[in-house]
């Protein structure tokens, strides 16, 4: 369980995340949605201790992220931010292998090699495993980063815009994979997503943020409603039920 309490972050005079108190249950897929600048990424960065908070606390299964050693947290929680500029020339396999670092400190055993091969296989990268990251397309690179995070094999997996750079096929593949990680491996997956239809189709819970605060939260079915979404995004959004799934239509 991830509990944030009164988490606040300001840059100068603008408060990006304003006293957010949230409880994210263990297990399942939770999506954080909301307009640009709502503070979604900042919140995710603070939960994963990549960014310090001005006020408030975050605990993960009772561990205070700002007090627990980084090494212990690295075996509980993994985080991938968006826009990763990697200058190091590493192969896909090298990169994914580093996902085992919190356990191995660099010395891989047979068990680690299984994890690495599986993660590369899940993300459909086996044929590319010997390639350098700078020889891949943006989408392939994004999948390699996600493979590394999955290879870290943590209970909590936090991903900021994991669908960045992915085409339709791989975006859907990614969401199915995360769904499977939650359902079959018992992982807790927390995502920042822009596409509300992906959020609707694949997540259990949705947290909507606006102006640095939680505007609404609840089970996906209750969140994908015209009144809720229109209020959050300040635009006209219609919701249709297609094949048992709630699909938002906001074009035109």
């Amino acid at each position, binding site marked *: 369980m991830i509990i944030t309490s009164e988490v606040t972050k300001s840059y100068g005079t603008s408060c990006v995340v304003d006293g957010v108190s949230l409880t994210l249950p263990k297990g399942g897929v939770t999506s954080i949605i909301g307009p640009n600048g709502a503070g979604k990424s900042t919140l995710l960065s603070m939960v*994963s*201790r*990549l960014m310090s908070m001005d006020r408030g606390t975050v605990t993960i299964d009772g561990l205070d992220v700002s007090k627990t*050693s*980084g*090494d*212990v*947290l*690295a*075996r509980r929680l*993994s*985080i*991938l*931010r968006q826009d*990763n*500029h*990697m*200058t*190091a*020339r*590493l*192969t896909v396999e*090298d*990169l994914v292998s*580093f*996902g085992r*670092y*919190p356990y191995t*400190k*660099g010395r891989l055993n047979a068990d680690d090699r299984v994890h690495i091969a599986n993660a590369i296989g899940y993300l459909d990268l086996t044929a590319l495993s010997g390639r*350098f990251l*700078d020889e891949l397309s943006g989408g392939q690179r994004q999948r390699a980063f996600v493979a590394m*995070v999955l290879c*870290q094999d943590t209970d909590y997996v936090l991903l900021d815009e994991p669908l960045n750079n992915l085409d339709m096929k791989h975006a859907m593949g990614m969401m199915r994979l995360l769904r499977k990680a939650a359902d079959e491996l018992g992982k807790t997956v927390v995502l920042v997503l822009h596409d509300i239809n992906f959020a609707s189709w694949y997540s259990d819970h949705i947290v909507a943020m606006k102006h640095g605060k939680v505007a609404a939260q609840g089970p996906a079915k209750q969140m994908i409603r015209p009144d809720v979404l229109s209020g959050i995004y300040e635009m006209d959004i219609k919701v249709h039920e297609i094949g048992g799934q709630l699909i938002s239509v906001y074009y035109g």
Partner: protein
Amino acid sequence: MRTLILAAIATLVLATISLFIGVSDVSLPALLSGTADPRAVEVFFISRVPRTLAVILAGSALAISGLVMQIIVRNRFVEPSTSGTMESAALGFLVVTIFAPGWPLMAKMVVSALFALGGTALFLRILRYVPLRDVLLVPLVGIMLGGVIGAVTTFFAYRFELMASLLAWEVGDFSGVLRGRFELLWFGLAGTILAYISADRLTVAGMGEDFTTNLGLNYKAVMTLGLVIVSIVSAVVLVSVGAIPFLGLIVPNVVSLLIGDNMRRTVPWVAIGGAAFVLACDIIGRLVRFPYEIPISVVVGVIGSFVFLYMLLRSKRGTANG
């Protein structure tokens, strides 16, 4: 692994050639059969062996310090002479020479290393304020910082009539290496070993602060470790043989092109490549105007600038990250 052993053997061959070049005539058969002129044997052990060892130690250590620098700064074009490190080491050495001329060389080296550490930390600090982390802007900032520190050093060297010493530190030269005047370079080997031991941590730091934190490492601590390696190596080389430009750029970049940036794999290659490159340059420098010598920094500078230009042009065609 096999190619690495071949490279090591090639380096040993170069080292052997290096041992038997010089005015005083010592040949391998004569040395082994014990029929060599005793004076020549003395020259061999007092001058030739220390010189070849110094070349190997300084070459590998400088190449490693360039590699570490490039990984932690995440820029292909930084090395101790494009980041203010070498100039800071020279300033430190000058300060300790002025204020405590009687100190042993070891103590002077430590002061020099501390200055190098401070100068490099200042460089990283300045980089935080450079809005555009342009690939070529980073080494330019370093060269400018080095210029400022170098100017201060020159001013005081001039005032204290130490210009001749300063020149000796700034222009790397192996001709003055004798037994008793190169042993500090073993600390360079220590730096190489330290880089190999911490290879995984440094590679992780090279992936950036977010990835490092995610994998449970303390980013600042790893950066400090890298800076300590670079500073010690720079100070040791400066104090014992003088600065050698470009070396820390060329060798790691060539290795990175061929086998990537995973330091667990690249450290042995960079160390051997650095030693082989400087051995070759040193042999050329001693043969071109035999029996006179061209300083190593000139030979490395000439060959290095051509390789560097080639790399720059190549990176324009290749990836945006260089």
